[in-house]
């Protein structure tokens, strides 16, 4: 059923002189879903995205967009792309930049002008007092520039929106606006792909995810299935007071705990093979630490990521979750 897939990547490979950026990658993104492309920096996310957009050509393998080869004339016009490295023509007027971007995607000039007005108003860039559409890009604040960039991504009403590290550099207000827009896009039947190394964001927003590391797919699937498959060998533990020191001997006991993510007052604990959660609870209570939460849970994406990718797959600059 190729028509149900927004993107169908088959056995794609991209090799540079020094290293293999993407190795035999296959992934399918169903239409109308929010899809997370997760992985540490340098994992090959941006290379994959650039191949989808036909910015770079894979050495081997095929990519289809909505059931058509992505090299088909105009195929990439159905994609809206927000790159990780953002920027616009500094000396150009906002309206002209937006019209240029829309026309590049094949939107008629008149239609583009009309949509630009709607978007400027929606994002508060055009108010009765001030019309920022007449300003030059470099006269805008950073937050406003990001809004303009985002408008440029969506102006041609793409069926597929690709956001590369969309949350990096966003202030909380713009980040919220972005999340709202992603949800809204999904509600209108669009497909959204975004790459991130921020697992908390991905866990909340994505229907499906694909984790890649060192150019290879580590796992993919629907988020709930991925988590269920990882089992319930994880304990969420919360304690009050200053009990950290008392808990340390337990958390470092490798017969009981395989790994513990110490978040100061909250611990995500993965049990060792064969360990009994009741035993863990008993020993925690025995320390006298006031237990606020003790729950057998599915592991977070963050945990799964750490386990599957491992510390070696995480390069510098990887900041855990945020």
């Amino acid at each position: 059923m190729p028509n149900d897939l927004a993107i169908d990547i088959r056995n794609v490979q991209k090799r540079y002189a020094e290293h293999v950026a993407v190795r035999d990658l296959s992934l399918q993104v169903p239409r109308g879903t929010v899809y997370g492309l997760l992985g540490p920096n340098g994992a090959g996310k941006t290379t994959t995205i650039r191949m989808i957009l036909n910015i770079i050509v894979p050495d081997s393998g095929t990519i289809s967009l909505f059931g058509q080869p992505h090299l088909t004339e105009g195929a990439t016009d159905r994609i809206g792309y927000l790159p990780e490295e953002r920027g616009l023509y500094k000396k150009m007027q906002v309206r002209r930049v937006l019209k240029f971007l829309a026309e590049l995607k094949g939107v008629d000039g008149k239609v583009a002008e009309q949509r630009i007005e709607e978007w400027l108003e929606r994002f508060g860039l055009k108010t009765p007092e001030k019309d920022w559409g007449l300003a030059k890009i470099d006269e805008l604040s950073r937050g406003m520039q990001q809004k303009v960039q985002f408008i440029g991504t969506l102006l041609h009403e793409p069926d597929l929106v690709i956001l590369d590290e969309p949350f990096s550099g966003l202030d909380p207000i713009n980040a919220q606006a972005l999340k709202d827009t992603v949800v809204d896009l999904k509600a209108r039947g669009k497909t959204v792909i975004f790459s991130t190394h921020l697992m908390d964001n991905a866990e909340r927003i994505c229907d499906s995810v694909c984790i890649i590391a060192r150019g290879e797919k580590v796992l993919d699937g629907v988020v709930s299935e991925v988590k269920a498959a990882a089992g319930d060998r994880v304990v969420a533990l919360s304690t009050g007071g200053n009990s950290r020191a008392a808990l340390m001997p337990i958390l470092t006991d490798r017969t009981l705990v395989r790994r513990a993510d110490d978040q100061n007052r909250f611990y995500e604990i993965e049990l060792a093979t064969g360990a009994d959660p009741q035993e863990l609870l008993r020993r925690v209570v025995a320390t006298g630490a006031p237990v606020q939460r003790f729950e057998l849970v599915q592991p977070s994406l963050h945990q799964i990521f750490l386990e599957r990718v491992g510390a070696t797959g995480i390069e510098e600059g990887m900041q855990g979750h945020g």
Partner: protein
Amino acid sequence: MGKLLVVFKREYLERVRSKWFLVGTLLGPVFFALITVVPMLIAAKTKATSDVADVVILDATGIGMGRRVAEGLHARFPDAATPAVRNVDPASVPREEDRATLEVRNKEHRGYLVLDSATVAGRAARYAGRNASSLGDVEIITSVVRQQVLAQRLQADGLDPARVNALTSTRLDLQTSKIGDNGREKGSGISNVIFGYVVALLLYMMIVLYGQTILRGVMEEKTTRVAEVVVSSVSTDTLLAGKIVGVGLVAVTQVAAWVLLSAALVLYGLPIITKGMTPDMMVAGSAKAAQGSGAAAALANAMPSISLGTGLALLAFFILGFIFYSSLFAAIGAMVNSQEDVQQASMPVMLLLISSVIFMTPIMTNPGSGLARTMSLLPFSAPILMPLRMTLIPVPWYEVLGSILGVVIACLAAIWLSARIYRVGLLMYGKRPTFGELARWVKYSN
């Protein structure tokens, strides 16, 4: 095609709309007028004033040669006082020269002229003065001295002094015209030289200015990261093509505006300038024919004789030269990450361009030489130097065609190379690539 048009439109309109384009377009003709008219006025002024005659003559000949030369100079500049003549003993010449030097330094005179036995023998005279580097002034002094040496000899041979004066008094003005394949052409040879020079310089200027505009444009897209969005919608080849065509047409627009504005300036401005000149000054300037028939005739005569074929060839060379250099500049723009890198990275291309300009003067003095021939056939200098040669002398058609063919091939090579570097470099951030890395870019450009 549609996307090419969108890219082209942005490149063209954003630049034509800018303040700097307007300023440059309006000020260009004024600038050109200044660099052509002002030297003309200055030349006319210095010739007409009696500065040349404001000299001291140190006469060590003992036969009154100094007085003769003084009268000769006076005859040339009747308005000026007759130059002072000091009869000096050959032995005291150095002392007298020191004294004269002091006077010139104190601005009592413009310079001094030493005449001695070598002058009488027709070998040498010496001139020292503030205007010693002015070719025109020196030329006048030389001709006067030469004339008087001749007159003195004729007189010494027994000719009547009055006869001698009548015989030796000449003031030759050499009028030149060019002979091409179609016979004698109207217009002076000089105006062709000026035209050729202006065309070559204009080609060079436009290629440098707008080539670097392309470089900056590419670098802007790269450093602001806007390139990433743009190339997700349009191929890098289309982007590069749209950019070169767009900026190229900006250059053409500017030149066209300059030509029109200059023509207007000459038609309406020249009469105003020439009104202030005496006929004598007009002779000194280039607008010789303006003496009787006014500015329009002067303009017609000053116009170089350019055939349609030559005009088309000029246009072809401009377009090809622009494409060649701007694609190289685009590749450099895609290579660099900061303004500091630009100077260094564009050096090789600038050297190619500058080498064409360095050879302009030798080629102008001898457009038929082997050097001129070679440089006008080499693809990197042909776009500037072949047009220069073509305006100076008739160049065989096969040389022109060969030159154009060479540039076309060079263009294709430059486009091929640049498109590949551009494609990779545009999205490659970080340090400037080494030659090894560049070679890899070209190899792995998809």
